């Protein structure tokens, strides 16, 4: 009887996950396009990737984006959460404002920011101009396109902020008070009491953020289609181009597996590293 209840998932898993994965693996070892189906080529598609300039470009762009967005997003989200945790009334109101950008994501946000970051008439550059700074050309410039995408992501960091806020509220005030009485200053309390106690939340956010940033697509695609001069060609964008614009399904499948491997490796490394810096209360370690 129970199997009847889980049947939807079981069937879905067999078709949309396990079946699709097996098929993807098979495709990745074939030279395939829409018309001529399959000629077995073994690992040639995987080797091909490592001979492509664009592949390395995409890897570089994705890493650069991740390197910027994960630390920046973490710091901003944590800073907001810590301020709101100081009983800044009414908390619900401030929380709503800071969280709202996370509710609207995707295309609408991309279009909105395309206008906010318009080099001539956009809000940001107008403000910069007013205080006498030269505004970058954002999505029209190779150097500033990725920072632009990062800015959008950091603006939408509300989900992380909520999780940090929940983590901070679970930290006992008694512990903080006790260290205050022992003569610790505000920074020392944060560094040695609060921060260690929220490392599980930081860990969770960093892992999910890295996974998400390796898969960034919509903002870059809507705003720049990967340009200018492939400056925002992320891994998924490259994969999309190869599969659905050039119909190199075999090669694109190989790319997907390479992306999967990269994500897996990073997650593993982070999991391994967690015992060095993630503090689980009660001394429980993974």
């Amino acid at each position, binding site marked *: 009887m*129970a199997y009847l209840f889980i049947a*939807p998932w079981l069937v879905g898993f067999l078709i949309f996950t396990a079946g*699709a994965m097996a098929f993807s693996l098979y495709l990745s070892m074939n030279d395939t396009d829409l018309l001529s189906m399959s000629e077995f080529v073994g690992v040639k598609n995987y080797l091909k990737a490592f001979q492509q300039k664009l592949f390395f470009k995409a890897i570089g762009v994705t890493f650069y984006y991740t390197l910027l967005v994960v630390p920046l997003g973490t710091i901003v989200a944590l800073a907001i959460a810590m301020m709101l945790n100081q009983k800044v009334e009414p*908390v619900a109101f401030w929380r709503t404002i800071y969280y709202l950008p996370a509710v609207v994501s995707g295309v609408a946000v991309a279009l909105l920011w395309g206008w906010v970051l318009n080099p001539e008439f956009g809000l940001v550059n107008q403000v910069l101009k007013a205080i006498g700074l030269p505004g970058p050309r954002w999505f029209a410039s190779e150097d500033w396109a990725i920072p632009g995408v990062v800015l959008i992501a950091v603006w939408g960091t509300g989900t992380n902020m909520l999780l940090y806020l929940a983590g901070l509220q679970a930290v006992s*005030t008694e512990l903080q008070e006790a260290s205050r009485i022992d003569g610790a200053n505000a920074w020392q309390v944060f560094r040695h009491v609060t921060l260690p106690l929220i490392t599980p939340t930081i860990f969770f956010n960093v*892992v999910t953020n890295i996974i998400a940033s390796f898969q960034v697509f919509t903002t870059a695609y*809507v705003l720049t289609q990967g340009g200018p001069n492939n400056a925002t060609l992320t891994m998924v964008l490259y*994969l999309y181009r190869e599969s659905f614009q050039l119909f190199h399904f075999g090669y694109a499948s190989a790319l997907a597996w390479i992306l999967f491997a990269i994500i897996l490796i990073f997650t593993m490394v982070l999991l391994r590293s967690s015992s060095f810096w993630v503090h689980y209360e009660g001394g429980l370690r993974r």
Partner: protein
Amino acid sequence: MTQSSGTVMASAAVANLPGTGLGASGSAGVGVPHGAPYVARRRPLRFGYYLGRLVLYGIVLAGAITYAMPFVWMLSTAVKPGYQVYLIPPVWFPETYQWSNFWVPWGNLPFAQFYANTSLVTFFSVTGTLVSSSLVAFAFARMRFRGRDRLFLLVLSTMMLPNQVTLVPLYLLFTKLGWINSLLPLIVPHWFGSAFHIFLLRQYMMSIPLELDDAARIDGASWIDIYWRITVPLARPAMGVVSIFAFTASWNDYLYPLIYLNETKNFTIALGLPLLSSRYVTEIQQTMAQTVLAILPLILVFFLAQRYYIQGVVVSGVKG
């Protein structure tokens, strides 16, 4: 600058009023811990303390204004006539309000169709997710069967899989089925349960006392009865969270519609919106007005169900 942001924040505050009971209800959310012991510092530091609070409020306010500004900028642009858009320095309140930005583009592009498509996809995706995921979660939470824990582990592990791997095979599968350029590929997969939502519902259903099931079984209730009459009604908060997540994901989805739909008449709003800036001479005030319309349902649902939203985010993060 501050003036215009003030209006938006004021309206946000009004919309927020029903949500202020959030902290008081205290149900596992991130509400304000009202009863938390608060040690008032009555020391000579008092002046310094108030100065500190003032600075803190200042920073929080400045940050909030910064965060709200893009929205205000969008709203301001959305009601401008074309000649007021490209001004340096910009104006926040146009001389005349051009409300037609909201409906003129509907004559150039089939926006009504876009919204109809999006609503269809969203409605049937959410229903599918709710029905299938709750059935599966019910079995994992309330029933005993061979291989249950191992299968559940399998459910969890599929969450880690990046969906890029299945992108091409699914595209080819739906091509074979002749579903490309229809809304079916965007709906049907949701009727087979989603790992994340199964997990969420299962965790919640575990917290319902098992005695309820036993009592019902003694009274001769079938598993379906128990599922439908006991567990689902009691799991309503979790169902709420799942529907909000599924709704937002469907409404915002871009990559899948981009792949599966290729005729304008089948587009969802996520695909239709960017057409404004590519097909005709870009009228940025119209693009912004349509962006406002496109995010309106999201904002509305957020304010109506803020409690579920915030609890859902927190609950889904706790597993870390």
